[in-house]
């Protein structure tokens, strides 16, 4: 298990695929760990990509600072992983908490990236997200990791995924429960206590940017992704049908296919972001569908678009 060194801490990472070539770097969500990207690693390596996964400070097999974790340190840790890849084109992909770290990296080191995929993420804490975050933190403090998982599972995954798993949830939760420590999760959550919105800095992200948002994402709804779409010039928003916040866990084949197509389009210079809005197909590999013109993609009902 290789490690990188960030001041006195160790960052666990893994690099798969060929020695050289375009690379994808994945940044975990709050309660995730590197192994959860294995389906993505397999799909992208098969297409000739290098894939780097790692555990952020406070996660998985990386060191877990006792009291404080700063987001600046997480960005620095991500930078160390990207440095390992040398000069090859790098596509950076982060989900939720990891999406914020990826955005922050893209703001300060955009020239190092060939493309950015921001999934289920945000640039500012809306009142709903702030209050939800506080409630989740209180849940962690009073009920432990297991209770936090109990809250997140139904919030972040669809009935279609949960239904067949109901009798198996304890087993599904166990690895996450073993890997995550309460104090480390709490430190990760508390790294948002002094969070400053990134919105004003988003226009400085000039690279091609794919924004992925679950149709029914309850935790980070469409409006938060709309901020990214409007502020990042070369971006496109793709709505994943029937998906919630954790669509990367629920629809890995579809999401990996979207990431692959994004990278191939960028590398072949076919990519045109244009702040466009799309609907992802139900099946991996099928074409994207343009969001119907004249309708408001921020609404759940087919309401006419009101120009803002």
């Amino acid at each position, binding site marked *: 298990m290789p490690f990188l060194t960030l001041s006195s801490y160790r960052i666990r990472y893994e690099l798969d695929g060929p020695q050289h070539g375009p690379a994808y770097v994945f940044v975990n969500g709050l309660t995730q760990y590197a192994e959860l990207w294995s389906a993505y690693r397999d799909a992208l390596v098969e297409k000739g990509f290098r894939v780097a996964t790692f555990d952020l400070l406070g996660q998985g097999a990386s060191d877990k600072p*006792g*009291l*404080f974790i700063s987001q600046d340190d997480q960005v620095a840790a991500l930078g160390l992983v990207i440095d390992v890849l040398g000069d090859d084109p790098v596509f950076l992909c982060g989900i939720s908490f990891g999406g914020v770290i990826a955005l922050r990296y893209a703001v300060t080191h955009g020239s190092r990236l060939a493309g950015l995929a921001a999934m289920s993420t945000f640039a500012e804490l809306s009142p709903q997200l702030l209050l939800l975050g506080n409630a989740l933190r209180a849940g962690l*403090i009073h009920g*432990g990791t297991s209770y936090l998982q109990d809250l997140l599972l139904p919030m972040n995954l669809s009935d279609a995924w949960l239904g067949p798993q109901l009798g198996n949830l304890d087993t599904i939760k166990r690895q996450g429960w073993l890997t995550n420590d309460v*104090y480390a999760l709490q430190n990760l959550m508390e790294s948002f206590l002094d969070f400053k919105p990134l919105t004003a800095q988003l226009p400085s992200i000039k690279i091609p940017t794919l924004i992925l948002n679950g149709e029914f994402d309850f935790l980070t709804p469409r409006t938060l992704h709309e901020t990214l779409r409007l502020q990042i010039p070369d971006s496109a928003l793709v709505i994943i049908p029937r998906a919630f916040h954790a669509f990367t866990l629920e629809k890995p084949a579809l999401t990996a296919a979207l990431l692959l197509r994004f990278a191939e389009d960028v590398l072949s210079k076919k990519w045109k972001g244009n702040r466009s809005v799309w609907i992802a197909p139900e099946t991996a590999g099928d074409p994207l569908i343009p969001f119907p013109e004249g309708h408001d993609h921020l609404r759940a009902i087919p309401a006419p678009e009101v120009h803002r």
Partner: protein
Amino acid sequence: MSRFLGPVDTMGCVPPRQQTRVAAFLMSCHGALARQLAVALIWERRPAWHMELNTQLYREAETVTLLLRATSWVPDPELLFLLPTWETAWQATPPAEIGDRTQGLAIDAAALGHAVHSMIRPAGLLPEQVPLHDPFALALRRIEFESGRVMQAQILFLKSTDLLPLREQVTSVVESRHRLVRKLWREMLAGIGVEPCN
């Protein structure tokens, strides 16, 4: 080395030798915390902190008495050598980083509590096949669950605005106590053939 305690017996119970060693370690560190809290309560005059320390004292006492009753004890001669090492490690030590000795002792005590409650995850050692109502397993789950809550007072204190000017020193003391607790916990587990994942 196994990630979990065991192999369990036909009833799914953890071997008594492992139970004895783990329980002895936990009773040693939580007992030490209880003693430190008892002393701190004598001097603490702020009502909110007095109440919190009092709660913590009884949580630590609960951990010790629970393990006394829930563990299948067997003679373990190695404890004659291990216990003095552990007890020495828990002793209050004014950190060199903190100029004020009294404040330093309070920070060290909180750092030790934080390390014990956060680093040590006894329930994470239980293999899946241990029965839900096994007394030792119930005790370990209870201790780990309560540790997550008891730790909050230490976090509040160590991250308090009063200590913000000493943030680097406090962090250093906490990391030092974490390293010590992690080392002793892992050494103890290695002695019974266990290497935890965290």
